[in-house]
């Protein structure tokens, strides 16, 4: 299981978010294919894909000489779980604070 921090760091970059969202909505693609529709170089895309891969947000599969990347949306579950848990904790604490002040 990846830490929420790893995921947050991976998605903190807007280009990486864009790449991840494209793969989520348009299906698997290679770095070359992604570079054709984004205003950055294939090399830069490749670097972003590596970070996303390390964070568990994409998986790689080799088709002939091409490496295709697929999004793993379920990877976000850890991150959203962190956010939901922390948010719920503070919601409860602040309710108790209000009661203490009442």
């Amino acid at each position, binding site marked *: 299981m990846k*830490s*929420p*921090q790893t995921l*947050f*760091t991976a*998605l*903190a970059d807007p280009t990486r*978010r864009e790449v*991840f*969202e494209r793969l*989520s*909505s348009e299906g698997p693609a290679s770095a070359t294919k992604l570079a054709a529709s984004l205003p950055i170089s294939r090399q830069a895309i490749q670097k972003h894909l590596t970070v996303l891969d390390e964070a568990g947000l994409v998986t790689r599969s080799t088709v002939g000489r091409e490496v295709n990347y697929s*999004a793993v*949306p*379920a*990877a*976000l*579950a850890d*991150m*959203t779980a*962190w*956010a*939901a848990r*922390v*948010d719920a904790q*503070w*919601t409860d*604490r*602040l*309710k*108790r*604070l*209000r*009661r*203490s*002040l009442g």
Partner: protein
Amino acid sequence: MSATRWLHTLALSATAKLQIVDQPEIERSIEVEAGAAEVWKQITDGALAEEWMGVMVEPRPGGQVIVPNDDVIGTVEEVVPERSITWSWRKPVGEPSQVTITIEPTDTGSRVTVTERLLEYRITGSPPIVGAA
């Protein structure tokens, strides 16, 4: 709803705000009918704080954040009396994070806002955190 969309929903929701910025953070606030001094006392008086927050925080830079079984789980970083307090902690099961509580006066009392953000670095100035023993 896809996980990606859920992420955006969280990012845009006013009540459960998840910001993916330099540091990811959650923000919560409430309005209370109490002055800043009263709210501050709730945060800084150990017995009162333990009651609603589950931890005691020593209100001075370098002060300890302590859970009821006396484990130190964090360190206070910044204190502006009756205005704000910031500490970093690592809960027994959880990522290191930083909490800031701010108190703002309103017409009817105070607004208390909490932000908690994930940290990339380990908390310094506190002993290693042993899990829930």
